[in-house]
């Protein structure tokens, strides 16, 4: 009875929350004919790999995938590094104005890209960054750095001061404390920040849509929506194959580090 009261509703949630993913898998492996005419759309009668093969051989999908991976990894590394030294400076060095900087970072965190993308476009054009893939790295830092800094501030606050005070008595400089003492302890926080950065960059759409124009520089989400959807004929097999492959990296990273992810999510509401 108790089991039914938990697993029953949980099952309903499961169906609702996982349905689109089930649908992606089904469509990816269904034959073209079966996509349009089938006795039961929630099952596969004739499995095929042809959609995946078509996607990888007739479209620029692999290029988009490599682009997304490059941008996500590079902006994660850059923004976690910048955020760590910023958070350390705000929390531990207490220089004049650190309070103001901390508030400014928080406000930057709640500025959504949707109100920035038009004026930022004119800045990007002036800097000659338009349609340059690497330009997405500093652009993504505008939302990753505030987010990670905020997360790491919460994390560094909880590291006891005794450790660094002992090191300071031994004559260690602030910079040495930053690298040798605090950094190893901060690793779990840095992993949290890195996972969030990676999934947020992988998920980004608006900036890449507006600032990348040639097919060679597109990310997965942008390439799929601008080049695989043309006119009224939707290649659903290819589209769902692309969606499935595109979802995988974010989901794999997440499943590897699920505890860090949940801790970071809970931490960001508790701080």
């Amino acid at each position, binding site marked *: 009875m108790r089991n039914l009261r938990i697993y029953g509703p949980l099952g309903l949630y499961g169906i609702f929350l996982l349905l689109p993913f089930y649908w992606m898998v089904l469509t990816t492996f269904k034959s073209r004919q079966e996509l349009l005419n089938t006795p039961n759309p929630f099952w596969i009668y004739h499995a095929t790999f042809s959609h995946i093969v078509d996607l990888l051989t007739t479209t620029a999908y692999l290029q988009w995938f490599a682009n997304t991976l490059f941008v996500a990894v590079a902006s994660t590394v850059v923004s976690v590094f910048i955020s760590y030294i910023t958070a350390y400076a705000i929390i531990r*060095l207490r220089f004049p104005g650190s309070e103001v900087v901390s508030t400014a970072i928080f406000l930057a965190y709640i*500025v*959504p890209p949707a109100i920035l993308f038009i*004026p930022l476009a004119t800045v990007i054009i002036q800097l000659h960054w338009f349609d340059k893939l690497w330009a997405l790295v500093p652009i993504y830092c505008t939302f990753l750095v505030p987010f990670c800094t905020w997360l790491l501030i919460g994390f560094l606050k909880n590291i006891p001061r005794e450790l660094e005070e002992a090191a300071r008595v031994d004559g260690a400089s602030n910079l040495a404390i930053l690298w040798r003492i605090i950094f190893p302890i901060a690793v779990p926080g840095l992993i949290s920040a890195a996972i969030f950065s990676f999934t947020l960059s992988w998920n980004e*759409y608006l900036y890449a849509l507006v600032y990348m124009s040639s097919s060679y520089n597109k990310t997965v*989400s942008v390439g799929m929506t601008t080049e695989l959807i043309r006119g009224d004929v939707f290649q659903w097999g290819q589209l769902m194959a692309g969606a499935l492959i595109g*979802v995988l990296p974010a989901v794999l990273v997440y499943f590897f580090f699920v505890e860090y992810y949940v801790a970071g999510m809970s931490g960001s509401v*508790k*701080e």
Partner: protein
Amino acid sequence: MIQRSQLLSRLDSPRVLGYLLITPAAIILLGLLAYPLLLGVWLSLTSATLGKTGEFVGLQNYATILADPIFRGAVGYSVLYTVCAELGKLVLGLALALLLNQRFRGYRSARALMLLPWVAPTVLSALAWLWLLDPQFSALSWLLIQLHLIHSNIDFLGHPWSARFSLIVVNIWRGLPYFAIGYLAGLQSISKDLYEAAAIDGAGGWQAFRRITWPLLLPITTILVAFSSIFTLTDFQLIWTITRGGPTDATQVFTTLAYQRAITGGQLGEGAAIAISPIVFMVVLAFFVVRSVRDR
């Protein structure tokens, strides 16, 4: 040598090192966030188009969009979309958190799976929804027909109200896990003693929820709703992928309209004015966020 060590020790003083360490963040955030934000305000006061800087026109762009029925429709749907989606996410997310908070076998895998909609890239899962809501081949229509609830396929995205409703459901689908995890963290920090004391006093489950759980979850609710509202109000990915603001502008929101006017149509000034207008709502929401973060 002496000079060098003097220089190093000066560099290491909290004041100098502090400013040095925040420099990279400051350059990025001032150059690519604060400056564009101000530039956006300026652009909205000019007649700029793609390729032309334009002239100062005062509040003319704002007067134009306020008189534009499409913009007013976009404001209306942005607010409706946000209010309905937030309510749905709050109720369904809290219910899921209460479910997950009971210890049971498979708790960890259930929690991990439930977060998937939040982790997966929105555009890609929105494409799966677009295919699920297809007018001709919708698997949802097929299911409803099999259950004898409807007779023929529903054109989910072809009619204004069903399209509006569908987008809200998809937004709830995506954001519900965020609320569930936030609430789960909140629930786990409530002391069990409170519930034991309430049980001794004869309080039932519903009373315990109303008198203990809900009041203690209120601060977290404010943060979750305010944060989520800011990003729901300025949502672009989901709506752009599924309806592009259609059918005939029925699901237009601030961001999709700003994109169409500025990027597709080249009217930078007008687009900037549309993109900035949700700030009115956001300032109110940001006030609540800042206040509740400070209270903690």
